């Protein structure tokens, strides 16, 4: 019973693939995987847009959308129809081909990134030996799309937004990958499936997830901060910056192309959250041994929803950073912290198990955190604001 539920989608796929002639089977298998990924995550996107608006509303003591469908959950359909029926404007001065291609170039690599993520036991579209590398390589392609959009629109706001986006994404790409490298170091593999398998055990009441080690916790936090910046979400939403540069690189996009950008951003967020789960939160493994009977894919999506909720929560809390604050944070805190974390991981790896390992590991993470944090806060005048002429 447990096995059949856990392997429900895997057996369903095998059953469907069985209908195809033997020569076609690999293609049919890939097609079914791709269709399932796109279908499931498009639905999740629709759900999350509504949930996000409702959550942000609740954070601001409002209701949020509650009109279309039961409790407002069909709002995405209304939004989609609206986006589809809108006029598709292309500026006369725009580079039309690139302007058209940019949203497609944004969405395609993001969807490709899903192919290496294990969504459950045996549920991975492609088990790459270099899955993590592929994921980050493909994720970096989003930057090209963003700059294509900003440049081809021939609009100063678009260009400013695109330049900010490039500066931000490249700056945060470094700590993002460096914090992921710790996991690769410890597991000794770039394959996402093997990284998840390495976190499968249970030590006492804690599972063997990387997040429950000092270096893993620091890595997870660094990874999530960098992921927020990578997916252009608040407080790192400067490329969009509605109040500063209108909507940044998609000022000149309307209708369905805008919806595609929106979709691409959310898909990016899901992909990077799924990567965080894979690297640090034990992938599809249950948090307690007693809860193993719940299907693996259910655990994966529960974790995914938890991370998405945190993203929404942070969006509802933190105001947008200034570009210099963002750069300071990336290069003066995130990068040194990620490098020190590599050392912490190495020390953890070579020290014998025991209390000493924990103490050294925690000290290697917390000490630099406090020092770097103090350094970062020092230059800031966070005291009471003094007005020269008012009062």
């Amino acid at each position, binding site marked *: 019973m447990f096995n059949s539920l856990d392997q429900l989608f895997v057996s369903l796929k095998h059953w469907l693939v069985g209908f195809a002639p033997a020569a076609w089977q690999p293609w049919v298998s890939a097609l079914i995987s791709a269709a399932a990924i796109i279908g499931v995550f498009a639905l999740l996107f629709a759900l999350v847009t509504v949930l996000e608006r409702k*959550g942000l509303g609740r954070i601001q003591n409002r209701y949020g959308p509650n009109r279309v469908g039961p409790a407002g959950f069909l709002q995405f359909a209304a939004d989609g129809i609206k986006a589809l029926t809108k006029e598709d404007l292309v500026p006369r001065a725009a580079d039309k081909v690139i302007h058209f291609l940019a949203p497609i170039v944004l969405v395609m690599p993001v969807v490709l990134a899903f192919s290496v993520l294990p969504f459950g036991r045996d549920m991975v579209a492609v088990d790459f030996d270099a899955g993590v590398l592929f994921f980050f390589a493909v994720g970096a392609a989003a930057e090209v799309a963003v700059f294509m959009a900003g440049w081809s629109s021939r609009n100063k706001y678009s260009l400013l937004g695109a330049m900010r986006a490039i500066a931000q994404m490249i700056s945060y790409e470094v700590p993002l990958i460096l914090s992921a490298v710790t996991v690769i170091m410890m597991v000794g593999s770039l394959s996402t499936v093997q990284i998840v398998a390495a976190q499968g055990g249970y030590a006492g009441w804690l599972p063997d997830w990387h997040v429950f080690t000092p270096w893993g916790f620091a890595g997870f936090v660094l990874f999530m901060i960098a992921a927020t910046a990578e997916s252009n979400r608040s407080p790192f939403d400067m490329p969009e910056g509605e109040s500063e540069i209108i909507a940044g690189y998609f000022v000149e996009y309307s209708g369905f192309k805008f919806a595609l950008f929106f979709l691409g951003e959310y898909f990016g967020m899901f992909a990077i959250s799924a990567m965080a789960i894979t690297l640090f939160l034990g992938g599809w493994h249950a948090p307690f041994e007693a809860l193993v009977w719940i299907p693996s894919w259910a655990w994966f999506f529960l974790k995914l929803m938890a991370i998405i909720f945190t993203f929404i929560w942070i969006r509802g809390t933190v105001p947008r950073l200034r570009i210099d604050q963002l750069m300071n944070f990336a290069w003066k805190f995130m990068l040194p912290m990620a490098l020190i974390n590599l050392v912490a991981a190495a020390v953890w790896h070579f020290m014998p198990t025991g209390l000493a390992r924990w103490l050294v590991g925690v000290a290697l993470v917390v000490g630099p955190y406090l020092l770097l944090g103090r350094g970062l806060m020092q230059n800031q005048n966070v005291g009471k604001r003094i007005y020269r002429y008012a009062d």
Partner: protein
Amino acid sequence: MLGEGIIKGMAETARNFLGSYVSDERLTTVQYPEERIPQTENARQFPFLVHDGEDWHKGLRCVACQICEKECPPKCIYIEKSKDKKPDYVGKPQFYPAVFDIDLAVCMSCQICVEVCPFDAIKMNIEYELSTADRFGGLLVNKQQLARPNAYFHKIHPTEAAEVDARLAAEKAKANAKAKAAAAAATKTAAAPPATEAATK
């Protein structure tokens, strides 16, 4: 310490998030079509014409003096005076508006028409759901659509309506007294024509 403020802020937003499900006083939103905020007595949206009695046409207080038409800043009122006369609330024959149209699209709810009306014939309504699917005919509100009974006026602006009624009653009483006096004088003159003749001489 770095990150302290973010933790504090997140605690605050979490309190808001959970609190909005628990306590109703946090959610100040009024779910409009289902619930409405009761309007204040001095609320005003768009003018209406007051009529006394049941028959809106007979009871209309408006005498087509066209002061409101002239005073209206955006010129949204259009009045055509009648050729004949009909008795007003005192019984005195008066003109009445053959046509009285207000353009809803032009009206700016300034209440100047109400303030200049010497007959208390035009007042402000509190109805605010005035949109229509017909943007030409539907937005030109005619006499019949504007007419509301005095009882309605009492319902929406009780203080003002009571004051207006008292004033009108006083005027009517005064007019009645005057008429009675005039009638009495007329009977007196009829009874003693020589005396008046003598007096005029």
